[in-house]
């Protein structure tokens, strides 16, 4: 019986990553079911919803894009909204990039696809820690294992949700379900006053501009909210500095 396990192998890192991401199933699986169902209802096509969920692997942007498409927005508006919602991936990518520097393009493609909120949050402390150990050359296997757990969970539950949605009668007012899902994502994101200011400004501006073509109200509202949040944050930071000085 081995007393101390050697974790400096690809297999061990892969297993550690899978284990570390298993608890995220509790969050990913319900969102997969809901996301797959909303997608199938929007596309009115179960196969399309299944392929979309498995391939896009970015649930929030998928649901936002589908909502705009359903509201009759042109494609460039749909895709622009997806891009804005996905901007945080630039930050994630920049943060994990040093840990994938030594890898081939094939690996970088694969690991980039497997980047998600959950895999990023759990993997980055491990990648940093292992970069100074004997496991360093294999630490991307941790990210691979964790990423596969999240992607497989999302894919299986989204396909299940899409199949279930086709069994639901279409006349029971499910149009509002995407908005309820958005509320469930947005409310926990309002953690402090600057985030609340961002939401309030975005809400007022988007309602005031609701009649504009091309969902322009969404973009002006969204950007105004982001700017309002940043302004309130920098004002708050200045206030704290002044209080500390005086």
């Amino acid at each position, binding site marked *: 019986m081995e007393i101390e396990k050697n974790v400096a192998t690809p297999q061990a890192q892969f297993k550690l990553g899978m284990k570390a991401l298993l608890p995220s199933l509790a969050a990913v699986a319900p*969102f997969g079911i809901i996301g797959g169902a909303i997608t199938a209802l929007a596309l009115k*096509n179960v196969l*399309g919803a299944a392929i*979309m969920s498995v*391939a*896009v692997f970015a649930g929030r942007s*998928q649901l*936002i894009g589908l909502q705009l498409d359903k509201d009759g927005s042109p*494609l460039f508006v*749909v*895709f622009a909204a*997806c*891009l*804005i919602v*996905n901007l945080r*991936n*630039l*930050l*994630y*990518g*920049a943060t*994990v*990039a040093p840990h*994938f520097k030594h890898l081939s393009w094939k690996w*970088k*493609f694969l690991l*980039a*696809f497997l980047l998600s909120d959950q895999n990023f949050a759990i993997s980055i402390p491990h990648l940093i820690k292992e970069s100074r150990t004997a496991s360093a050359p294999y630490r991307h296997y941790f990210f691979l294992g964790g990423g596969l757990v999240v992607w497989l969970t999302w894919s299986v539950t989204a396909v299940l949700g899409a199949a279930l949605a086709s069994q639901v009668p279409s006349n*029971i*007012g*499910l149009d509002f*379900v995407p*908005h*309820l899902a*958005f*509320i*469930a*994502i*947005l409310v926990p*994101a309002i953690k402090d006053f*600057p*985030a609340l200011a*961002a*939401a309030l400004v*975005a*809400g*007022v501006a*988007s*309602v005031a501009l*609701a009649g504009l073509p091309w969902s322009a*109200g969404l973009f002006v*509202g*969204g*950007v*105004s*909210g*982001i700017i*309002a*949040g*940043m302004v309130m944050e920098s004002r708050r930071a200045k206030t704290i500095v002044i209080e500390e000085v005086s």
Partner: protein
Amino acid sequence: MSAAHIIVLILGMTAIAFASKFTMIAILGKMDLPAWLGRSLRFVVPSVLTAVVAPAVLVRGGALAVGPSNARLVAALVAGVVAWRTRNMLWTIIAGMAAIWLMLAVGAQ
């Protein structure tokens, strides 16, 4: 929805999602994210999602509808409270749908 439109949506969304994940991994060391972009990211979800939800809830038939006769507004408020207390998407949707069905049953629009 036409098959061609579905294919375009799948290809476009897949390309955008992948590009957002791959870009910084690919160009490592050649460019840093501007500081303002990093600071703005945490406001994207509260701003963009509110900008999607607020008009869908508050604007009915082209006019502002604030009051208890607006079923979607009541349902959104119920869902907001449930989301805040439980942080659970499933409960939020169940509570919101229950509220909207109840409101429609008692004659709200």
